[in-house]
């Protein structure tokens, strides 16, 4: 039962591994960024899960509620989401410039061209 009860943490692990695998295995620069994005997003789920308290309500002072969810991880992850967006935007901008400079976004083709330059 414990395994099922912690399902969001399992989703975190699976997503993280998927994203990480895509970053390592793909040679296409855009696909790598997609993988990186999944990898980062998985951490959002980790943080959001850890703030949730079963039966807790939104952290607003009312007479009726006594159990609140912890808002701090949610606020923290808002910052990380912004960072993630900035990283993706910057990464994509770099890919556009790489495409202009090399005429391709496949890692091995770029590598071959760079090798020629080095010789």
């Amino acid at each position: 039962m414990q395994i099922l009860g912690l399902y969001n943490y399992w989703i975190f692990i699976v997503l993280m591994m998927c994203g990480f695998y895509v970053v390592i295995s793909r040679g296409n620069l855009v696909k790598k960024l997609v993988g990186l994005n999944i990898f980062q997003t998985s951490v959002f789920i980790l943080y959001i899960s850890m703030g949730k308290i079963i039966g807790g309500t939104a952290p607003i002072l009312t007479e009726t509620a006594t159990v609140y969810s912890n808002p701090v991880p949610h606020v923290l992850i808002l910052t990380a989401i912004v960072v993630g967006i900035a990283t993706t935007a910057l990464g994509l901008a770099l890919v556009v410039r790489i495409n202009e400079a090399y005429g391709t976004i496949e890692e091995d083709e770029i590598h071959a061209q760079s090798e020629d330059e080095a010789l």
Partner: protein
Amino acid sequence: MTEHLPALQVVIPLMAAPLCALLRPGRIAWMLAMTACTLCLLIAALLLERVLAEGVISYAMGNWPAPWGIEYRIDTVNAYMLLLVTMIGAVVMAFARPTLEQRAHLSKRKQPWFYTTYLLCLTGLLGMIITGDAFNVFVFLEISSLSSYVLISIGRDRRALTAAYQYLIMGTIGATFILIGIGFLYVMTGTLNMLDLAARLPAVADTRTVRAAFAFLTIGISLKLALFPLHLWLPNAYAYAPSAVTAFLAATATKVAIYVMLRFFFTIFGAQFSFETMGLDAILLPLALAGIFSASVVAIFQTNVKRMLAYSSVAQIGYMILGISLVSVTGLTATISHLFNHALMKGTLFMALGCVSYQIGAVRLDRLAGIGRTMPWTMGAFVIGGLSLIGVPLTAGFVSKWLLILGALERGWWPVALLVLLTSLLAVIYIWRVVEVAYFRPAPEDRKIGEAPLVLLIPTWTLALANLYFGLDTSLNAGVARLAAQSLLGVTQ
């Protein structure tokens, strides 16, 4: 006013950055950026003086008391680091303007953006050093990383773009690992304040979550500081970035990552947990030695001098990690001292190379033939930096090598001490290759190049002379470093 100095240290470059983007032409933006950098240096010097006189400064950001608010906490270690980073920041900023304006490297319209990015990078680095909040470290880390990816991609060579992309991928993986680590620590302790974490962690230290957090943080920080074998992003990034950017990043970015490592291992987890329970030194020691040895050997075979110095940086990072793995006051003093000395020597070397590429337009080894005679001042600075890198007495580099060897002998690890000496000889070889080509090969007949302009030589020589000065007066890079090491290990004098 003076009680707000810790906040101003970060706020001044942060506020100056967007202003720079609005100012035209580039020269006006540069003047603002230069003023901001100088003010930062001044503040850092004042802070260090105050910390040494009065002890730890705690500053509650926005007047929210710790542990709820973000605390800026300045002790000997980070006051020393602040001074280092702001000093390099100011010197390299003076160096950057002519190199950007030359041969329209950056169009006039884009020059102010360079200063904006540079100041943001400085903000991030200073923030990482000054903050006493674990999550704040991550935020500032990303500010400095994102801006350094941009700075690297400005390089003239198209390979700068792929180098920046590669750094972006590896840097983001590292930062995300750090984020996961901090998350796990928060789950177990419910706090993000470093001191609070240090107080609450021992009670829960024997859990898998804390051990996992430790592992994630170790890998994440090691990626950022380019610990062998996680250094793959570094050589290309340093080789193809513009000269000023290379000088700035080589002298500061990896050093700040090492500082973060010291903070997490010694202040938050505590030396006992990190090294006795987790046995981290058994991992760091072989990696450091392998890194020193292999990177030094690879450096010998490089034809691009900038790339050669980049590999040398990987080796030098190995020396710093070696100091950490000794887990003694002398070893840590060597690490903290080498942070400072290596910034001085690599700053000098990369700026001297910047002068060379300013005049010749290349840093390939064969193109440097005979420049020892045509550019005596530039190569003079290079030689001083090189001697310091090797660790010749009377230079700053000697101080930290000496401490490192002492630390190794203190532990009775004489083979390690011997290896440090041997690998210094490898440094002799790769520096000699440049000196030989520059001084003993005839310059091509048709080339008419003179000495680099004074605006470039002054900042280069400022750092070169600092190498000599701190080789003689070791009160800062050995004296304060020892105090910092003692405060990290919790040893009282």
